[in-house]
C-alpha cells in the first residue's frame, strides 16, 4: 500500500460519486430515506480536507484515520460499515505491509469480512455486500491463480457490476429496505451501487498505474 495511491483514490472516488449524484439519490429515495449520496459526499469531503494531514503518514496510519473520520462524518448505516472496512485494512497493513496483489486481495477480503460482522449480514440481503463479496471472491481467486493484473482488475469490475445488478431482484433483509418487503424488488440497492462505483473507480486507477 502507498499513501499516495490512497489519496489519489480518494480524489477519484469523490469525482465518480459526485457524477452519480442524481442516480444514488434516487436509488435511496426509492427504497431508503434518500440520504445515501449526501452521506457519502460528506465523508468524501472530510477525507479531501484531510489531504495534507494524511500525505506524510505511513499507509496504516492514514487508513486508520480515514476509517475514524468516515465513522464520525458519514453516519447512517454506511458510516460504520465503511469505517470498519478501513480500520480493518489499517490493522492488516499495520501487521505487515500489504504490497503484492495477493496480499491486497487478502486484506480486502478480511475487511469485507469485518463489514459482514459489523452489519450481521451476508450475501443476498440486498446490501453493499452483494457488490463487495463477489469482488473479494474474484480478487482472491484470480490472484491465487496468478492472473495478469489487468485481467484481475477487469474481472473485479465485472464482478462488482454483476453483484450490484443482482440486488435488483432481491428482497432486502438488512438495512432500511428490509422494511419494504416485496416492494423493494425491482430497485437496485443504493449501497451496492455506490460500492460498485468505488470499486470500479479504484480498479480503473490501478489499471492506469500499471499500464
Amino acid at each position: 500500500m502507498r499513501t499516495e495511491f490512497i489519496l489519489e483514490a480518494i480524489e477519484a472516488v469523490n469525482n465518480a460519486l459526485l457524477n452519480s449524484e442524481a442516480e444514488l439519490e434516487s436509488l435511496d429515495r426509492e427504497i431508503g430515506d434518500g440520504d445515501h449520496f449526501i452521506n457519502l459526499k460528506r465523508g468524501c469531503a472530510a477525507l479531501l480536507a484531510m489531504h495534507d494531514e494524511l500525505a506524510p503518514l505511513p499507509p496504516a496510519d492514514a487508513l486508520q484515520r480515514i476509517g475514524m473520520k468516515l465513522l464520525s462524518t458519514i453516519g447512517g448505516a454506511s458510516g460504520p460499515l465503511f469505517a470498519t472496512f478501513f480500520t480493518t485494512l489499517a490493522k492488516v497493513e499495520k501487521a505487515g505491509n500489504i504490497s503484492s496483489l495477493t496480499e491486497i486481495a487478502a486484506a480486502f477480503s478480511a475487511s469485507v469480512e469485518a463489514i459482514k460482522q459489523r452489519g450481521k449480514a451476508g450475501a443476498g440481503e440486498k446490501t453493499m455486500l452483494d457488490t463487495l463479496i463477489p469482488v473479494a471472491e474474484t480478487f482472491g481467486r484470480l490472484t491465487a491463480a496468478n492472473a495478469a493484473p489487468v485481467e484481475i482488475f477487469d474481472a473485479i469490475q465485472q464482478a462488482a457490476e454483476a453483484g450490484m445488478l443482482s440486488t435488483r431482484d432481491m428482497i432486502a433483509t438488512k438495512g432500511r429496505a428490509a422494511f419494504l418487503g416485496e416492494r423493494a424488488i425491482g430497485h437496485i440497492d443504493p449501497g451496492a451501487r455506490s460500492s460498485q462505483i468505488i470499486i470500479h473507480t479504484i480498479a480503473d486507477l490501478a489499471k492506469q498505474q500499471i499500464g
Partner: protein
Amino acid sequence: MKKFINNVDDILIESLSGFAAAHADIVSLNLEPHFLTRKQKAENKVAIISGGGSGHEPLHSGYIGYGMLDAACPGHVFTSPSPDQMLAAAEAVHAGKGVLFIVKNYAGDVMNFEMAAEMLPFENATVLTSDDVAVENSTYTTGRRGVAGTVIVEKVVGSLAETGADLAACKALGDKVNSRTASMGVALTSCTVPAAGRPTFDIGDTELEMGVGIHGEPGRRREAMRNADAIVADLVAAILEDLKPTPGSESEVLLLVNGFAATPLMELYLLYNSASKLLQAHGLVISRSLVGNYTTALDMAGASITVTLLDDEIRQHWDSPVHTAALRWQC
C-alpha cells in the same frame, strides 16, 4: 422545496443553536461532536442517552431534562449520529451508575450505537425500540422499526432512572415498555430531505401511504385516500393484532396520536376521537393520552397511532414529574 433555511449545510447547526438558546434553562449544546445534555448534570443515576437522525423533532433533544434524558446525540437529517458523539455525550453525563442507550431499531443507529458501546469505558446497556407494526416481523430478520413509541420508552425509563434504579432495572423496564407498545403511521404527503431538495416519494392527490416510516420509507401499501375513521380502523386493527390485549379485560392503555409535522392539531384530535372509540369498543380503558407532534418526519403530512398497555409500574413512571422542552408536567 420551500423551507426556512439559509444554507442546506447549516440547517442542523442553526436549528440546534436555536433550540439550545430557546431552552437555555434546560439544555446545553456541545458542538463537534454535536450532543446536548441537561443544563444541570444529574448525580447518582443511570445516564439515559438517546439519539438518531435529525428531522424528528422534538425527538430526541426535546426530551432532555429532569425525568427523561440526560443527553441526546443528533445526527444529520435522517442519518444516524456517529460513535464519537455518543462517547462524548456519555463522558459528559455519566454519573457513576452506567449508561443506558435508547436506540430506535435502524441498521445505522444500531451499528453506530453498538460501536460506541464497544468503545465506552463505562458499564452500559441498550434498549432497542421497535414499536412499528407496519413492518411484519416474521420474514425479516432486521425486526421492526422504532417510531413514536420511543417517546414513551424514554419517559418511563427516564422516570425510573431518576429514582436511582440500577442499569439492569432501567434496561428491563425499557424493554418491557417497548414490548407492550405498538405503533403504525400513515402519510398523506412525502417529506423532503433538505439536502435532496425534492420529495422522497411521489404521492397523488387521492392516495395515502399506509404504514409509512418516519423517514418517508414506503409502508405496507399505497392506497386510495379514505375517510379518517376507515384509516384509523386499519391502524388500530394492526396495533391490536400485535398487542393482543386480553379481550374484555378492561386493560388500561396509553393512547398517543402523533403528528408527523404538517398535520394540524385539529385533525390529530379528530383521529384521537376515532381511535379512542375503537379502543373502547375493544374493551380497553384509555387512561392516559398524548396528542401532538412528538415524533415527526420533517415536513410530512400524516400521523401515527401508538398504544401502550399500561401496568401500575408504567403508569406511575408516565405520571411522574418531567421537565423537558417538549414534555412537561408536575414541575
